[in-house]
């Protein structure tokens, strides 16, 4: 009985200590820290999980038919919606022109693959209801947000999420898209480890420049081009140079050879694409400066049109 009483007293004492420490911790600072159990988000494991999440997003983006190749899709099926700079949120290595596409073709002879394709094939001739498509679209947005939180430096996820926000047929949000690009830019600027964050940073910088150009073309009151463009374009240039330097260093240290051939091609292809966009924006920006000095207007219009068509081509 005596021991039980002492134990009870100890429990009450413990409660008092814990409560006072809890209150003291509250006074110490109550900034909200986002939940990140075991530091998964933004860690190497987060990168891995984000890459795995692409398949699920791809499935949602194509209404459950992500496994289909272009030739297999019947006319009754709804057309693929473009949701990103790549045709889908999935890894670009799945595109038909890539060697991975050939691999898919070879694999399609495999019984399991055929069964999986059959499982994913839509037999219902009626198109999906609008409300259902809207639901899938919303679901996809949540998956994008989750995947982006796991790895904000992955260019594939960033681009797809950016285009989802900016060019969504069920309600786009340019402001949110611009905020995403800015947050990604800051994030990549803080941690430029490896080639992927440098390319993502460059893409985010160019996205901001594109938004500024669009605003300027639309005559928006809040348009900041071309001067605000200067900063982001310089940043994009810095990131692209950084990518080139990292690539050269990796080639000398053998790090480049460690990557698979697929991955090397994908990185270089994407770097080329971002570089071309950078050159267009730069031409447009220089054109504005030239016109300000009274030298021709035509080049400006051509460059701006090029820049916009590049944005549309994403």
């Amino acid at each position, binding site marked *: 009985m005596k*021991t039980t009483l002492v134990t009870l007293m100890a429990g009450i004492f413990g409660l008092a*200590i814990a409560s006072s420490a809890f209150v003291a911790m509250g006074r*110490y600072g109550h900034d909200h820290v986002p*939940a990140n159990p075991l*530091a998964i988000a933004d860690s190497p494991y987060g990168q*891995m999980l984000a890459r795995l999440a692409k398949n699920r997003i791809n499935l949602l983006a194509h209404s459950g038919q992500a496994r289909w190749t272009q030739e297999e899709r019947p006319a009754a099926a709804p057309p693929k919606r473009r949701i990103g700079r790549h045709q889908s949120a999935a890894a670009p290595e799945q595109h038909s022109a890539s060697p991975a596409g050939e691999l898919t073709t070879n694999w399609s002879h495999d019984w399991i693959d055929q069964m999986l394709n059959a499982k994913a094939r839509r037999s219902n001739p009626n198109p999906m209801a609008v409300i259902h498509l809207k639901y899938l679209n919303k679901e996809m947005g949540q998956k994008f947000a989750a995947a982006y939180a796991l790895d904000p430096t992955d260019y594939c996820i960033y681009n797809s999420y950016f285009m989802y926000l900016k060019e969504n047929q069920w309600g786009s949000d340019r402001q949110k898209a611009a905020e995403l690009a800015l947050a990604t830019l800051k994030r990549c600027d803080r941690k430029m480890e490896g080639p992927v964050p440098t390319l993502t940073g460059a893409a985010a910088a160019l996205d901001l420049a594109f938004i500024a150009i669009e605003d300027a073309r639309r005559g928006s009151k809040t348009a900041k081009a071309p001067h605000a463009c200067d900063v982001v374009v310089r940043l994009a240039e810095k990131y692209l140079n950084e990518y080139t330097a990292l690539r050269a260093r990796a080639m000398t240290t053998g790090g480049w050879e460690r990557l698979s051939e697929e991955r090397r091609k994908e990185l270089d292809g994407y770097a080329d694409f971002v570089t071309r966009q950078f050159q267009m924006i730069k031409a447009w920006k220089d054109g504005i400066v030239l016109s300000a000095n009274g030298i021709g207007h035509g080049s400006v219009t051509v460059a701006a049109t090029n820049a916009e068509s590049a944005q549309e081509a994403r």
Partner: protein
Amino acid sequence: MLFRLALSTMIERKSFVLALFFVLTVPFALPYLTPWEETPVVIEPARAQAAWACLWLVTLGWLFYQGSDMGWRYSANGLFQYAKSLGVSKWSRLCQLWACGMIFLVAMVAIALAINVFFCRPHQADEARMWIITCFQYAGLFLLVTSPLLFLSIALGSRFNSAAAYCFVLGISVYGLFALPYVELYLQHATAPLLSLFWYLSPHYHIADLTSRLVFRMGPMDMTAMGMMTLYFLGLGLVTWSCSYLMFKEQK
């Protein structure tokens, strides 16, 4: 007597070999699943992260079950009663089983610490010093959280059966470690006084998860905050120990 019996039984059952193997090998294998080829510098933080994640996983998944199973078996077989007849006090009976579980817990923490200190430490001297301090802070908080829960699993096992006791301890650990931050997130966007009160009274084990400080090399906790956390978990530990003692039942 109970301690030696429990220890020899656990050694005889050999499941600890799997647990130790898991804690020892997974941190070296798991980082190679990450895209490390692009950034080889991530290997070391990823190894540290895997070491702590494995430690949490094995403690929650294996050790707490061993605790509740021990409590249930010793109560069902009448061994607690037998020890009582030899004049062993109630506290002593519980503590002997707890000490047996603690041997494995401390061994696993030592392995995780060794992996962190010897295989993940940054190369710069000042960074390495900060890293080691953070590791020891993490290990201290980890033990403050898990050791009372091990005690609770034994006591609950003696009253209910092993599966029910384990589910309760696992539930409370997962809730305190992983779910509470999301409850807080919900409370930020909703007014729910009852839920708020429940949140305040919940065991905030997630505070002891310092993995992000290691992965993102944020440096050690400052001593004031560390002192408050230690006090909080000591208080919570006393409450858990006290409840466990009251829940302990020596015979089915």
